[in-house]
């Protein structure tokens, strides 16, 4: 009854599994599209080299015991126990492994946290449930649309990029697997880090901190392009932003928020005349408001409404504005829900 052939089969299976597991793990790890990411990949391999003998050693001794020390007769097993000396050895072995491992980890950490003078500075805003990338030096932004299209961060190859990470609502996490890096976007904090993409291509990114209903759809792309293509893209984006214009059609504006976006990208009112804004929020359980600024840098605020939780609507009265090119947005979602506000 007691002797089945199972342990022997188990030996082979376990050995095979161990070998293939190691291969799989090193083979599947991403190697990184930035020097920082490549450093982390190197650390991954170093820990693998330290961990593999521990794994193989323990499993081998375990399997050896199972095969060799199966009960075969009724003689009692030796009743010896280990003394203080063996206990010291038991403590020493893992201590030595840690003593080797820890400095490698710290060295990598220092390398990836080294600050470089950034050529591109991007303020990254996370909100439920998309991203906005504000190019601070270029004065433009790109936004994604929840459930419709992810935001695309275009970057020039080989230039250090500084990310200033913020959140408009709950905690999110900016995660690009090919950078082997993520950092939490925390409301009330700005977190800064730099990296240098050195490989052309489009790489997927995604929120990594659970942030509510559509967390799984909070994706974005990082598109690394040649410097000339980057300049061309900047120019094109600027043109697109400036090209938005519209004419006043009376003093009553009507605006609908649906699926976390406005139904209009451009609003216009006559100069020096009071006007009213009708806001309808069709998003159940989601807050929106309506504010007018000088630009998306929000240096000067001309008008702001209280937050409206959908479904609901409200009519707001606004004071006259001098002629000019303004900017409106929902403060809950930022530039992702914004447009041009023209006073003529």
């Amino acid at each position, binding site marked *: 009854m007691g002797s089945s052939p199972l342990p022997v089969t188990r030996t082979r299976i376990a050995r095979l599994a161990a070998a293939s597991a190691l291969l799989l*793990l090193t083979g599947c790890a991403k190697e990184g599209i930035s020097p920082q990411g490549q450093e982390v990949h190197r650390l991954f391999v170093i*820990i693998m080299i330290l961990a593999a003998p521990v794994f193989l050693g323990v499993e081998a001794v*375990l399997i050896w015991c199972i095969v060799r020390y199966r009960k075969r007769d009724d003689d009692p*097993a030796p009743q010896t126990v280990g003394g203080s000396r063996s206990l010291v050895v038991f403590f020493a072995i893992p201590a030595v*492994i840690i003593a080797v491992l820890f400095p490698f*980890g710290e060295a990598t950490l220092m390398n990836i946290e080294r600050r470089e003078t950034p050529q591109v500075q991007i303020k990254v805003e996370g909100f439920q449930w998309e991203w906005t990338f504000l190019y601070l030096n270029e004065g433009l932004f790109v936004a994604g649309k929840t459930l419709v299209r992810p935001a695309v961060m275009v970057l020039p190859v080989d230039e250090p990029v500084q990310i200033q990470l913020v959140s408009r609502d709950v905690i999110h*996490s900016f995660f690009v697997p090919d950078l082997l890096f993520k950092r939490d976007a*925390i409301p*009330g904090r700005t977190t800064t880090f730099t990296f240098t993409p050195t490989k052309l291509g489009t790489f997927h990114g995604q929120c990594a901190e659970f942030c509510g209903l559509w*967390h799984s759809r909070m994706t974005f792309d990082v598109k690394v392009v040649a410097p000339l293509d980057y300049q061309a893209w900047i120019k094109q984006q600027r043109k697109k932003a400036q090209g938005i214009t519209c004419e006043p059609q009376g003093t009553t504006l009507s605006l609908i928020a649906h699926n976390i976006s406005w139904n209009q990208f451009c609003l216009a009112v006559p100069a020096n005349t009071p006007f009213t804004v009708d806001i309808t929020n069709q998003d159940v359980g989601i807050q929106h408001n309506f504010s007018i600024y000088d630009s998306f840098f929000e240096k000067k605020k001309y008008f702001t409404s209280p937050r409206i939780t959908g479904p609901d609507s409200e009519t707001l009265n606004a004071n006259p504005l001098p002629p000019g090119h303004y900017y409106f947005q929902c403060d809950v979602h930022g530039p992702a829900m914004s447009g041009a506000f023209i006073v003529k």
Partner: protein
Amino acid sequence: MAVTQAPTRELTPEPRGRLLVWLTTTDHKKIGILYLVNSFSFFTVGGIFALLMRTELARPGQQLIGAHAYNELFTIHGTLMIFLVIFPILAGLGNYFVPLQIGALDMAFPRINALSFWLLPVGGLTILSGFLAKGGAAACGWTCYAPLNEQLGTGVDLWLAGLILVGTASILGAINFIVTILRMRAPGMTMMRLPVFVWGILATSLLVILATPVFTAGLIMLFADRRLGTSFFDPAHGGVALLWQNVFWFFGHPEVYMLILGAWGVVTEILSVFSGRPIFSYRGVVLSFLMITALSFTVWAHHMFATGAVELPFFSITTELISIPTGVLFFVWLGTLWKGKLRFEVPMLFALGFIALFLIGGIDGVWAASPAMDFAIHDTYWVVAHLHYVLFGGTLFGIMAGMYYWFPKMSGRMLSRKLGQWHFWLQFIGFNVTFFPMHILGLRGMPRRIADYAPDRGWSFLNLVSTIGAFLIAISLLIFFANVLTTLRKPRSAPADPWRANTLEWATSSPPPPHNFDALPAIHSGRPVYDARVAEAGPTDRGSR
């Protein structure tokens, strides 16, 4: 002597009907069984939730359940498995076996013992009742981070209320265990003769009374934020979102050790019994348990490396230091097997499986302990793999070892060995098929807690494999439940000591009488039952320790 009086207590309730006996019992053995029945019921619920999630993730695109339902399921799955399954199973085994292993009549405070049990099903059902509330159950993960936890509906309030009850239950239980172990030991049962399982429960209880009140306070603060207008955690009103994470993980990391110290005790004892050897270094085990208990309070922020707001080197080195006492345990386990006479009974299979799998869960934690590496794998499926290798491959295999080991003592009946072997192999294979691929998914950048994924990410195949594994686990557990239910219909035939074991619970009948012991053997070592067996066999060799 108390022994002669005790039976009268059980004679009176008998006419009151069986249900009432179970509802009003203060007998630690009955309460222990109540714990197990309650926990395995919630285990079934949490397991079905896991199967639903795995089925949804088998292919990209939404098939079975929507995003909101998925978010509710992983939240309640984690909450139930941690607070109402793993911890209470260990507490239940502790309830049944700590008094027996130390030669006591009962727990120190039998009525508080009953109270701390009955709070559990109430707390668990309160959490589950969220599914009936407007807006559904809490959908914020078992960690329920701020300020998302301020945003969601009534389900979060029910989640908070349930956890406050469960937390109170475990604090009461921990006090009871500590007093029982310190004050109720039989003559001769010195601290350094305590069975290792009792040490595991003692260390767990110390963790509970130091860490759980902090968590309970945090839960009450969050409730006040949500319903009484305070703003501890809400940055929109001047609170600090990261404060929640600090409070949560100050408890949450010791919690991991609350979930495994008891299982380490079970496995260490079983390895010793079924290899016919004393524990290779009893002192090493006790020292490791105590070191881990102390160190576990210094590592909480390793869950927060990616916030960029914690001291990275400090929390990295303390985390890596924990692998030293944990490494010692592995040496002791292997040293116990070395030159033994191994009997591959079902409890032993699970104990050996525990070593093989917990090793992986320990090692893959080392990557996450290094902050630079953690930036890559934090909140990915790597972490899901890691935590399941620790809590399922580790603790749950240890719990199953304990269930097969102690079932004859609790019920007077031996579980089927054949079904037990099927259970073990299916669970062992199914577990690895489910959770090993998650390491690779994590390295390929699949975040945890996502209801869906795009087909172009290269995650589809491994998710399918993982789902198949989950169903293998489900089949193995059905075999276990079938084994238990069919065995319970058989006549009581288990001997007092079916395994040739070492500790005091095997010195009394199976199941034990209400007063536990008709007579206690002399206790001259940590293995009184072994000593008695050797003395009976003849004066050839003596006990150890």
